[in-house]
């Protein structure tokens, strides 16, 4: 129980830190977002009265009151789910705009992470088993290089080869524009077909975890119980999976949770390139439109998602690892 409270407390602090950053960021930046927004309205040929300026100031939270008061107000409204009103999609509330795009990102990132976990685990296990061999060198080096290449290049190259030149996969959107979202086999197939390239790009950027799994596995293979297994004459395959891999799997749960922020960062870029209607595309559009309430909402939501994944991983590890449970007692 102490473990849970500790972890939960940590994520609560992290959440407050994120809210604080979100609150102070627009206020710390040189240049006034209110002024720059008004300037873009002007250049668009709009007629701006003093009332409009006041309304915009209020929208951004720049009201005549002490800073600490608006800070407390901000935190209060965050918890009530009142994240402000989007400027681009005026007068829709930020949260409702985000909810339109959220499912696609969850689908894309969720599928990619599951597939990536399976691939990296198996490649890591085999690489560690054959360490020093040809398979090991090829897999670890290629995996690391591919992971280090930024998502933009991976995604652009995939787009260039498979969507633009060979035309094997579609070049945008989450499903065929002729179909309606409904529970049919045809629609599901279209969704999967459109997700192949973006998911591949996200998976490729997370291949760096092969190295983590390999290192875990090598550490396990040096343990006495492995030698004991061999000594007893347990078959290799069983030593590999039931002895080594089972124990090496645990730390990878945490590693994956830690890399969620990185994966979300990658998916933002990937969604933009493949015109995939997720949070990344929305973020890009709102950045281009300087829709600050929406940008802040997105940043906060992505942070909350990453934090809750981490919390989930911590809970999962607690149930999977008996050593942690013993420590608590």
């Amino acid at each position, binding site marked *: 129980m102490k473990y849970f409270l500790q972890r939960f407390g*940590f994520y609560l602090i992290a959440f407050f830190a994120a809210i604080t950053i979100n609150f102070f*960021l627009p206020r710390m930046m*040189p240049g006034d977002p209110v002024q720059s927004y008004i300037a873009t309205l002007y250049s668009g040929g709009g007629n701006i009265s003093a009332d409009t300026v006041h309304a915009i100031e209020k929208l951004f939270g720049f009201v005549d009151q002490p800073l600490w008061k608006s800070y407390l107000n901000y935190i209060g409204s965050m918890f009530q789910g009142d994240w402000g009103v989007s400027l681009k999609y005026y007068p829709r509330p930020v949260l409702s705009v985000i909810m339109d795009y959220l499912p696609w990102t969850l689908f894309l990132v969720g599928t990619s992470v599951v597939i990536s976990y399976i691939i990296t685990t198996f490649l890591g296990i085999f690489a560690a088993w054959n360490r020093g061999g040809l398979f090991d060198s090829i897999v670890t080096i290629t995996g690391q290089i591919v992971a*280090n*290449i930024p998502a933009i290049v991976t995604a652009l190259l995939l787009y260039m080869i498979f969507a633009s030149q060979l035309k094997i996969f579609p070049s945008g959107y989450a499903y065929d524009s002729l179909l309606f979202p409904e529970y049919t086999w045809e629609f599901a197939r279209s969704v999967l077909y459109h997700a192949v390239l973006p998911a591949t790009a996200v998976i490729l950027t997370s291949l760096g975890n092969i190295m983590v799994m390999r290192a875990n596995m090598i550490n396990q293979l040096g343990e006495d119980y492995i030698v004991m297994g061999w000594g007893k004459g347990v078959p290799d395959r069983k030593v590999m999976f039931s002895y080594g891999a089972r124990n090496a799997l645990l730390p990878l749960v945490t590693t994956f949770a830690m890399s969620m*922020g990185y994966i979300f960062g990658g998916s933002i*870029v990937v969604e933009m390139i493949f015109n995939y209607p997720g949070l990344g595309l929305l973020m890009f559009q709102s*950045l281009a439109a300087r829709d600050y309430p929406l940008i802040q909402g997105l940043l906060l939501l992505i942070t909350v998602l990453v934090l809750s994944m981490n919390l989930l991983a911590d809970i999962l590890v607690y149930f999977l690892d008996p050593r942690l449970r013993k420590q608590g007692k």
Partner: protein
Amino acid sequence: MARINECLTFMRQNMKLTIGLLLLLLVVFSCAAAPLLTSHNPVERIAGSHEAPSINHILGTTQLGRDVFAQTLYGGRTSIVVGVVAAFITLILAMVVGICAGYFGGVIDNLITTIINIVMVIPNIPLILVMASMLGKISPIYIGLIIGLTSWAWGARVIRSQTLSIRTREFVYAAETLGETRFRRLFFEVMPNMMSILSSLFVGTVIYAIMAEATLEFLGFGDPLSTTWGIMLFNAQNSAALRVGAWWELLGPCLGLVLLGAGLTLINFSIDEVSNPKLKVHKIMSNFYRMRKKGKV
């Protein structure tokens, strides 16, 4: 002669390092020697729009009729410099924070570790995006600064745990007994013993910084008048290069980023191998495992 042979043997034993250095030198030298390799001006209109690769224009031209090969070479200069500057900032911040946390321990350590963990769980790329967007179109050096200021957490964590293990060694106690100042103990006793970790961190950070810079500029937060790999990708995307089939416009910067990333990654692998004797042990043991597989042991 013997020297050369020695060198060759060393290179053959460290294939990763050799290939990595070759790739790195290839990219860095061709960027540095850009005026010798191409006679075209990177920002001048010298040909028609979207011309396919030919002998005159090795990588074709952009929509504005600029030579892609020349742009790649000149653009690489800025990209690499910004990456290295950002990596330096990151590493210095990580070192100060990490060493302080690891050395002083206690309350300071707890506080700093909590801060490090918080910074690590808050997703980096969206945060950088928001900061860049609020600053508007910014020059490459500011992009380097933003990346440096937001990416130190991982390094600080690694350095902290390393400091913790070095701190309790005898030579540090000896220095304390000799009455060396705390500052000297930190930066002249503890730090030199982490050189291998620091250098591998540095290489890793350079990779990250160059890639993050390209990402930011591709998303449109760079100065569109400067020439870097990220800006080239941004321009290609904006002129719908792929839609009209001008794939060569993307090839230059992509190739530059891939070659540089691959070279630096390989170098990092070999630094790890040299500095971490555990990895070497596994190399020796691999012979044993191979023999066991064949049933000889």
